[in-house]
C-alpha cells in the first residue's frame, strides 16, 4: 500500500480466541476510548471501537502501522493491567483486505456464536454511531462501516441465515404466531414453575399477550413468576387447569409431575369446551405432562421438548446451508470495497492536477481583471468565473474519470504499479 493512503487495521479479541474473563477486561467505556484516541491520535487517523459480549475489536486507519499497533497494545496493557504476553496470543491483528472482510463477516453475523443472530448488527451500528458522535471517523471508516451495514442487510434479505430461530423458547413463540394472527389478543396458561416455562412466558409477554394464568402447586412460586415477568397474572391451583385450559389459547406445561396432568380425555373435553378453536400446547416437562395422544386431536397442536429441540436442530442445519451463499456475498462486497479503497491511491495525483488547473485559472482571471478587462463589472466577472470553471471541470472530467477507473482496476490495459508510477509522473508534471 502506498504511504499516501492510510492502512485499515483491526485489533481484536473474540469468543473464538479469548475466554470471557479476558475479554471483559478489555471492555472500554467512552472515557477510556477518548483516552486511547488522545494517546495515539498522532499515529492514527480514524478509530471505531466495537464491544459486545462476544468480542472487543478496534478498527483504525494509520499511515504508520507498526507504531500505531504497538501504541494500542501498550495502552490496552496499561489500561487493563495485564502484561502484554498474557493476551498477545489471543489478540488477532488484521490489515486492509483481511480487516475489511472481517468487519463484513462480523456485521453479517457469520462470526457470531449463534450464526445469523440479530443483535450484532445493532451493536456494530451503535459502536459506529458513538465514533461518529465523537468525531473519530473519516472517509475510509465511514465508507467501510456503511459497506458493512449494506452487506449485512443483503445477507439478511438474500439468504435465509436470519430465519428459523434456534432457541427453544423463541421457537415456541414463533410457532404460536404461525397458529394465531395476533398474539396480543390471545391468552396463555402456564402450568408449573419451571425455568423454561417462565422463559417462554417472558417471550409471550414481549409480544403483549393479552392474559396470563399461572397454575402451580405452590401459589407463592406462581406469584413470584408473575413478578419476574412483570405482568399481572391470574394465579390458580393445579386442580383448576382443565377449566383454565379451555379458556386460553396457549398452554405451557413444565411441572415436575411424574404422570400426565392432561390426559387424552381431558384434551378432548378441553377442545370441546373451547368450541373447537385452536389450542397450542407446549409440554417442556421431562417426564412429559401431557399425554402424547392429545396431539392427534384436531385443532390441538402439541409440541414437547424433543419436538422443539429437533426443530432447533433442523433450523440450525438450514442456517448453515446459507452460510456459503452469505460468504460469497461478503467476498463480492469486500472486493468492491477494495476497488474503491485502492482507487484512493490516485487521489493525491488528481488533487494536484485540479489544484494546478485552478491556480492557472485564477491567475489568468486576475491578470485580465487588472489589465485588458478592467472595464467589466463584478457581475461580468462572476459570469467569467463560472464559465472558466465549467471549461476546466469539463476538460478534466474525462482524464480524471479514466484515472479513477484505472485505479479501481476497471481498465485492464495498465497494471496497478505502472499506473502508480505514471501518477507520480503526473504529480511531478503538475507540481
Amino acid at each position, binding site marked *: 500500500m502506498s504511504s499516501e493512503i492510510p492502512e485499515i487495521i483491526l485489533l481484536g479479541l473474540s469468543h473464538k480466541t479469548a475466554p470471557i474473563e479476558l475479554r471483559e477486561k478489555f471492555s472500554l467505556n467512552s472515557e477510556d476510548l477518548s483516552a486511547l484516541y488522545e494517546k495515539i491520535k498522532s499515529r492514527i487517523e480514524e478509530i471505531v471501537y466495537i464491544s459486545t459480549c462476544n468480542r472487543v475489536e478496534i478498527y483504525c486507519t494509520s499511515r504508520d502501522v507498526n507504531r500505531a499497533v504497538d501504541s494500542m497494545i501498550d495502552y490496552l496493557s496499561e489500561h487493563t493491567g495485564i502484561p502484554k504476553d498474557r493476551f498477545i496470543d489471543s489478540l488477532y491483528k488484521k490489515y486492509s483486505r483481511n480487516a475489511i472482510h472481517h468487519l463484513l463477516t462480523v456485521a453479517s453475523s457469520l462470526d457470531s456464536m449463534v450464526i445469523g443472530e440479530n443483535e450484532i448488527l445493532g451493536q456494530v451500528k451503535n459502536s459506529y454511531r458513538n465514533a461518529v458522535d465523537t468525531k473519530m471517523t473519516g472517509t475510509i471508516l465511514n465508507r467501510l462501516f456503511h459497506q458493512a451495514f449494506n452487506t449485512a442487510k443483503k445477507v439478511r434479505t438474500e439468504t435465509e441465515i436470519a430465519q428459523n430461530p434456534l432457541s427453544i423458547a423463541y421457537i415456541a413463540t414463533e410457532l404460536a404466531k*404461525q397458529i394465531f394472527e395476533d398474539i396480543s389478543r390471545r391468552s396463555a396458561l402456564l402450568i408449573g414453575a419451571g425455568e423454561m416455562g417462565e422463559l417462554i412466558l417472558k417471550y409471550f409477554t414481549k409480544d403483549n399477550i393479552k392474559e396470563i394464568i399461572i397454575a402451580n402447586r405452590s401459589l407463592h412460586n406462581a406469584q413470584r413468576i408473575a413478578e419476574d415477568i412483570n405482568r399481572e397474572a391470574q394465579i390458580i391451583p393445579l386442580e383448576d387447569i382443565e377449566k383454565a385450559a379451555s379458556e386460553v389459547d396457549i398452554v405451557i406445561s413444565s411441572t415436575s409431575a411424574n404422570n400426565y396432568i392432561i390426559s387424552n380425555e381431558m384434551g378432548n373435553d378441553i377442545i370441546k369446551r373451547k368450541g373447537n378453536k385452536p389450542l397450542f400446547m407446549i409440554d417442556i416437562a421431562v417426564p412429559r405432562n401431557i399425554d402424547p395422544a392429545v396431539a392427534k386431536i384436531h385443532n390441538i397442536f402439541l409440541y414437547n421438548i424433543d419436538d422443539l429441540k429437533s426443530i432447533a436442530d433442523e433450523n440450525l442445519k438450514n442456517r448453515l446451508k446459507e452460510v456459503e451463499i452469505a460468504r460469497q456475498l461478503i467476498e463480492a462486497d469486500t472486493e468492491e470495497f477494495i476497488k474503491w479503497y485502492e482507487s484512493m491511491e490516485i487521489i493525491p495525483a488528481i488533487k494536484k492536477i485540479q489544484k494546478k488547473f485552478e491556480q492557472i485559472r485564477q491567475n489568468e482571471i486576475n491578470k485580465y481583471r487588472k489589465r485588458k478587462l478592467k472595464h467589466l463589472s463584478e457581475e461580468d466577472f462572476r459570469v467569467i468565473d463560472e464559465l472558466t470553471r465549467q471549461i476546466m471541470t469539463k476538460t478534466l472530467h474525462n482524464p480524471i474519470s479514466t484515472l479513477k477507473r484505472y485505479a479501481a482496476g476497471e481498465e485492464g490495459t495498465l497494471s496497478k504499479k505502472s499506473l502508480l508510477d505514471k501518477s507520480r509522473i503526473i504529480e511531478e508534471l503538475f507540481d
Partner: protein
Amino acid sequence: MFDFFFILTLCSFILLSVLSIFSFYSDKKRYFKATIICFYISVFLFFITGILKFNPTSAGALVKATHTIWGYFFLIISFILLILLYLNFTRWKHQLKSIIALASPFITIVLSFSIPYIDSQRRFETELQHSLLPVHIFIATIGEILFFFSFVGSVLYLVMEWQLKKKSSMKFIYRLPNLETIENFNRWAISRSLMLLTIGIIIGIILVWVKFSALFLASSKEIIIYSSWLVILIIAYLRFRTNVTSHKVNQINTALFIIVMCFYVFTNIFITTGFHSYK
C-alpha cells in the same frame, strides 16, 4: 394476431405458474417480485387477447363474450384475475404469494382446457334479452369464483395444519400464512360467495319469471347453480358452527368444490339442452 397473443398468454401463465410455485418454495423476495411482474404481464396479455377475440365496440361486449364457450372460459379467468388484483390492495395482500401459487396453475389449466373451444360455433342462444342479464351473469360468476378462492384457502389450511402437526422445520411453515388468517380468509370468501350467488340467483329467478312466468325450468345450468348455492350454504353454515372442526370443514370444502367444479364444466360444455345452454 389472436393466435399469436393467445400462445403468448398461455406461455406467460405457464411461466407464472412455475415462478409462483418456485417463489413460494424458495421464499426469496426477488422471485416473488418476478412473480408479481409476470402476473401483471400475464393479466395484460390476457386482456389484449380478449380484445382481439371479441373486438369490443359497445358496452354489450361482456354479454356477447359469454355467448360462446370460449368466452365463458375467458370470463371466468377474467374474474379470477380481477379478484387477485383486488386482493393485492386489501388486508389479504400478504397471503397473495400462497394464493397465486395455487390460483395461477388453475388458470393455466382452464386456459389450456379452453383451446379446443376457441373456434367453437356453438353459441349461447337465449330469449332472455334483458338489461338485468349481464348483472345476473356478472354477480353469479363472481360468487362462483369466490367459492374457488375458499377452496384455495381450504387447501392452504390443510397444508399448514399438516405441517404444524408434522412438527418439521419451520422453513416451510414460515412460507404459509398463519392458521387463523387462512381461516379468516376462508370465512371472508365463502360468506361473500354465498351472498353474491344468492343475489345472482334471485336476479335469475326474476328474469325467468318475467320471460317464462315460471320460477324454475329445470335446465342443467339452473340445477348446477342451485346445487352450488346449496353446497356453499352448507359450507358457510359449517364454518360458523363451533362443534365442527376447521379440519373437517376444510376437507369438505375442498372435496365439494372439486365435485361442483366437475359438474360445472360438464354442464357448460357437454349439455346442449335447456334455455341457456351452448347449442
